[in-house]
């Protein structure tokens, strides 16, 4: 049993404050203000008690990342589920939702079960696959949504591609009602976005790079909201990047639509003014937009229009990114740096509360995708993150657990990292070192 003493516990489903937390039998045994040794001993019974002084540390429910690309099967040179799950745990994520745009895409039950099995074998973060919406991600025929759900899919997405055919999107929102799972939309009008390398604006004009206009996103956000309204379907909008989208989503929520949305940390932390021709780690889709967009995203995150934070962890091989800007692939890895960067740049200056951060990165995705976690209530699974706001670490290729290094923080020192992580009560990170569970011994 673990006794976490006097830790600042942040429970988005309850209260925050100095607490003593007990972990026992894979669950949160107690969450109380100051436990006496006698009480602890009584709860422990014959189990040995490991005591940890939580002074100056935060305890969050294990973070849940609703948008990751772990690249397995098919692109294991970029990342695999084991390395991605390791990166997740190092960054404070006890659960990750994986995107289906692998090779082959996760469009059958067998592949859903494979991804889950690989997650269990890795023995680190919990891995929840999304299936594709359409067979082969071709944007035409729907997948066997019911079968995929039985295999463990927690939603459906053709992420990486937009479903350009509005009728197919409408049918997907209708049919997915049978499953109760959300359709995750990668909102992008391909004709408006084609050939673009960064946000269409002054920075792109100056650099001579083809721009992707905000309208490439907002047109599809508007379309998908209209289809969700018409069908009553369950819609989740991935990686919202511009202010017009935030406004559309706000209005849709006021009308009571079953819609949720996510924002990626990089869109909150960088703008198109940070882009130069050589730092391809800032090449991402949707692109880093203007300062006005960035402000609107933060407002949207604070007022709940944007329900959740999600990394869109998108690993690539170094050589793929070591190209001229317009030729490099889109994507930023985020699992290992996102929490530290958001903490340092948004929480420390007071722009974002630890409570909202924990809510947006655990409770909100847990509720939307029907996953356990997101709370510190007694009886909940002990997926927990002990966060040390003073822990400093330099981001180098050597200390990244991810196979990839396409992060804009490479070479920089960040401050604020998880020092312990539990998944289902098992310690998987201790003192920044990983402790994978034995093969197949745990969970499911």
């Amino acid at each position, binding site marked *: 049993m673990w006794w976490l003493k006097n830790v600042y516990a942040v429970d988005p489903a309850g209260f925050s404050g100095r607490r003593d937390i007990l972990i026992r039998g894979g669950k949160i045994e107690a969450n109380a203000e100051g436990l006496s040794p006698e009480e602890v001993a009584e709860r422990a019974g014959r189990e040995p008690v490991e005591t940890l002084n939580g002074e100056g540390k935060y305890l969050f429910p294990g973070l849940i990342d609703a948008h990751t690309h772990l690249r397995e099967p098919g692109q294991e040179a970029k990342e695999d589920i084991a390395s991605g799950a390791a990166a997740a745990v190092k960054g404070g994520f006890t659960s990750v939702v994986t995107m289906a745009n692998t090779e082959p895409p996760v469009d059958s039950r067998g592949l859903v079960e494979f991804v889950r099995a690989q997650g269990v074998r890795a023995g680190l973060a919990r891995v929840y696959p999304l299936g594709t919406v359409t067979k082969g991600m071709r944007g035409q025929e729907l997948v066997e949504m019911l079968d995929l759900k039985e295999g463990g899919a927690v939603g459906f997405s053709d992420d990486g591609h937009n479903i350009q055919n509005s009728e197919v999107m409408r049918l997907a929102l209708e049919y997915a009602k049978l499953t109760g799972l959300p359709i995750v939309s990668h909102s992008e009008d391909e004709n408006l976005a084609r050939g673009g390398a960064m946000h*269409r*604006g*002054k*920075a*792109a*004009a*100056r*650099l*001579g*790079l*083809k*721009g992707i206009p905000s309208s490439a996103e907002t047109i599809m956000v508007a379309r998908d909201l209209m289809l969700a309204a018409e069908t009553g379907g369950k819609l989740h909008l991935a990686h919202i990047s511009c202010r017009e989208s935030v406004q559309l989503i706000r209005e849709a929520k006021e009308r009571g639509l079953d819609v949720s949305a996510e924002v990626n940390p990089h869109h909150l932390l960088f703008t198109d003014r940070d882009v130069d*021709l*050589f730092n391809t780690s800032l090449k991402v889709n949707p692109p880093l937009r203007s300062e006005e967009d960035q402000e609107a995203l933060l407002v949207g995150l604070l007022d709940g229009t944007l329900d959740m934070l999600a990394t869109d962890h998108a690993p690539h091989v170094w*050589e793929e990114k*070591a*190209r*001229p*800007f*317009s*030729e490099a692939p889109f994507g930023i890895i985020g699992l290992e740096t996102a929490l530290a960067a958001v903490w340092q740049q948004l929480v420390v200056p007071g722009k974002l509360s630890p409570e909202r951060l924990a809510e947006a990165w655990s409770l909100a995705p847990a509720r939307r995708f029907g996953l356990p976690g997101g709370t510190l209530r007694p009886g909940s699974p002990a997926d927990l993150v002990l966060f040390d706001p003073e822990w400093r670490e330099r981001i180098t290729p050597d200390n990244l657990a991810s196979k990839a290094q396409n992060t804009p923080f490479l070479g920089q020192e960040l401050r604020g990292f998880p020092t312990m992580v539990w998944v289902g009560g098992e310690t998987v990170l201790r003192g920044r070192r990983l402790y994978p569970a034995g093969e197949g011994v745990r969970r499911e």
Partner: protein
Amino acid sequence: MRMFKDLLGLEGLSPDEIRHILQTAKPMKDVLLRPVKKLPTLRGKAVYTLFYEASTRTKTSFEMAAKVLGADAVNIGVSQSSVNKGESLLDTAKTLQAMQTDLIIIRHSSSGAAGFLARHLEAGVINAGDGQHEHPTQALLDIFTMREKLGDLNGKKVIIVGDVLHSRVARSNVWGLTKLGAEVVLVGPPTLLPPEMSALGVKLSYDLDRELPGADVVMALRLQLERQQAGLFPSLREYSRSYGLDRARLRATGKDTLILHPGPMNRGVEIASDLADGPQGMVEEQVTNGVAVRMAVIYLLMGGTTNVVA
């Protein structure tokens, strides 16, 4: 004066650095006009041209410039398609490094490609056009040509008309001309001159005829005909009527305005023959000056000082 390994663009140069290159180009032009066009200055040095986009005049101009200076000019044959098919630019850079190259002249369809090469090479790099980003030697030869005819460019009005959006020539000229005090106006249809081009810090206009009065220089950009297929303008006819230069239209300037064009010209589209071949047309001057300016750039990057060739 800073010492440079590379010339990647004019945006990062100071006005004095630009003037220094232009000053150096003057004696180079004298050499070029001699019956025996050969200097021993760079004997034993190897200059490589690496053109991923088709080009006749720019590549020839660089090769000529290198040879007049006594360097060996080697062309590395790359087809346009090798960007996607062949080895990566990074591997090409490593190969060139291993060949003990002294200077690489690169043209590439990706913005930033020259800078990318420069960051991975000890050898110097000259940008002969990278995507829609910069084409510094073109702008330098344009500015050299203008200064030869007009003297100091401070306060002179220069109109650049055409496909500004996709033009690296326009971008480099804006940086260079504004640093030397010229007033630049960019003119074109809205589809080729979107509002974000205001990032370049100069006036934007859709109306050529309104801008012409008082213009000292009008530069027509080459119109890529495939832009019509992409829907950026409806027809050559309508384009030419709105933005094509001819002698009658140019009377509105009220001056003997210089007409520049980076070539190759679409005669009858962006420029009429009567103008291109007339006394105001600078196209051939530009070609000659191009060699001189490129000699100056090669020479300075390889460590030369101005007085050696005087």
